[in-house]
């Protein structure tokens, strides 16, 4: 194991010069040399979409490592790109990144063909998976990947960094499944940060699976193994509305959809016992967000 690759154990007083939050900072920066491993895959795939006055074109579609990019024909004004997993990743020690940009007035949707499975790999060192989403003025960007599954023994630090112009529209859905069927999950640390017109709109950091302290307790997941978020940003959205609660109990899963403080944005948080129940909650939240 490389040094600095694990969070401080719960209960042990940490070295004050090495705050546990360094994890967030390192992964947010996207390139922490200590996270890499000589055996790990280092790959950055890039998608850039522009608008030529008629339709959205893709001047850059650069596959790399496990990310095989395919344009999917849709016929409309927008472009859709599917990401096909070309190898098993992320494994421990990998450093993966996706750079996705929709320039002014472009309309881009990006999906993954299958769930992303984080596995242990040849080392217990963390893998990093950094997604950077950028949308220009009047651009529309939809990031709708399939679930991320944190398998037993895996160790992944994931970031999603979003930068929006004042007039961009965004639809983002992220789903995390903790463990495959009936196994303990790996260690999954995620940070999502969204800036809109230069101002911070959302900053959330989660840590699930041992050794994250308290992650499975009644104040965090209470035994649930599927957790997800949905973010809708749209300058034309009427975000000044009451929160919507989906399901009243917590045992069968539940969600809330509510406006964020800093802009025309609705954000849903959901927890559920299974991936299908989670998707159902997030689909319902999306329906409410779009006013259906």
């Amino acid at each position: 194991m490389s040094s600095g690759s694990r969070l401080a154990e719960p209960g042990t007083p940490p070295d004050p010069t090495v705050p546990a939050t360094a994890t967030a900072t390192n992964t947010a920066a996207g390139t922490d040399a200590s996270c890499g491993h000589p055996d790990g895959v280092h790959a950055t795939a890039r998608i850039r979409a522009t608008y030529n006055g008629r339709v959205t074109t893709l001047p850059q579609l650069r596959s790399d490592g496990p990310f095989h990019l395919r344009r999917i024909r849709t016929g409309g004004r927008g472009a859709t790109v599917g990401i096909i997993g070309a190898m098993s990743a992320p494994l421990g020690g990998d450093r993966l990144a996706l750079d996705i940009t929709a320039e002014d007035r472009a309309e881009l949707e990006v999906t993954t063909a299958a769930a992303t499975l984080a596995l242990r790999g040849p080392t217990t060192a963390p893998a990093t998976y950094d997604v950077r989403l950028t949308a220009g003025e009047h651009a529309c960007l939809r990031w709708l990947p399939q679930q991320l599954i944190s398998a037993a023994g895996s160790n992944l630090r994931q970031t999603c960094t979003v930068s929006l112009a004042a007039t961009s529209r965004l639809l983002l859905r992220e789903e995390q499944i903790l463990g495959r069927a009936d196994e303990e999950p790996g260690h999954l640390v995620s940070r999502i940060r969204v800036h809109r017109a230069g101002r911070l709109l959302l900053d959330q950091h989660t840590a699930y699976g041992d050794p994250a302290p308290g992650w499975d307790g009644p104040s965090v997941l209470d035994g649930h193994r599927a957790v997800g978020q949905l973010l809708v940003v749209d300058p034309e959205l009427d975000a000044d509305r009451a929160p919507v609660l989906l399901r009243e109990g917590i045992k069968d899963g539940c969600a809330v959809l509510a406006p964020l403080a800093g802009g025309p944005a609705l954000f849903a948080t959901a927890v559920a016992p299974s991936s299908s129940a989670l998707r159902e909650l997030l689909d319902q939240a999306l329906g409410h967000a779009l006013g259906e």
Partner: protein
Amino acid sequence: MSRAALLLLADGRFPAGGYAHSGGVEAAVAHNAVHDIHSLEAFCRGRLHTTGLTTAGLAAAAAAGCDPLLLDDAADARTPVPALRAVARKLGRQMMRAARATFPSAELDRLAAERPQGAHQPIVQGVAARAAGLTPRDAACAAAYEAVGGPATAAVRLLSLDPLAASWLLARLSTEADAVAANAAGAAARVETEGPDALPSASSPLLDITAEQHAAWTVRLFAS
């Protein structure tokens, strides 16, 4: 600095209105997710390392003299549900009143004028700590302790738990609370060079969801 000032600021009897809030434990008790001292400990541990870490970072940064309005925006971005933003500002307003009377300072006056509806509570707490001559680490410690002390005290009332058992629980969590405060203060020290992004944003999905559920109840014992 005065140790007694820290005890005063962190005292449950400091008239800042915290006693009316359960820190989410009332909703957890209603869902039967917290039902005894062990589930309460798990609840408090999760809250300490999520909300507790985040509020401790904000309090430490405010105590270090970072721009409280910038921190207030950072707190909003770290609080995705309106119910918890409203609670944080209400508690901030109440703490401001008590703090200005207890530790008069121009910085508190300025923040009160800029945020008449209340700044997020940990930021007021941090500025108050600064006014009292306390360190960022002290402010983080008060915030971290409050993150577990509030729900533990509320659970004693909701579940008729043994108050001695609740004290035992808080003592057991004290080392972890200290570690959280140290991490938070370390992050706050980096704000000057890295901006508020250096601060923790640890969050918990269930605290967010159940806070909105709880806010929709018509009858409840605690305000949050």
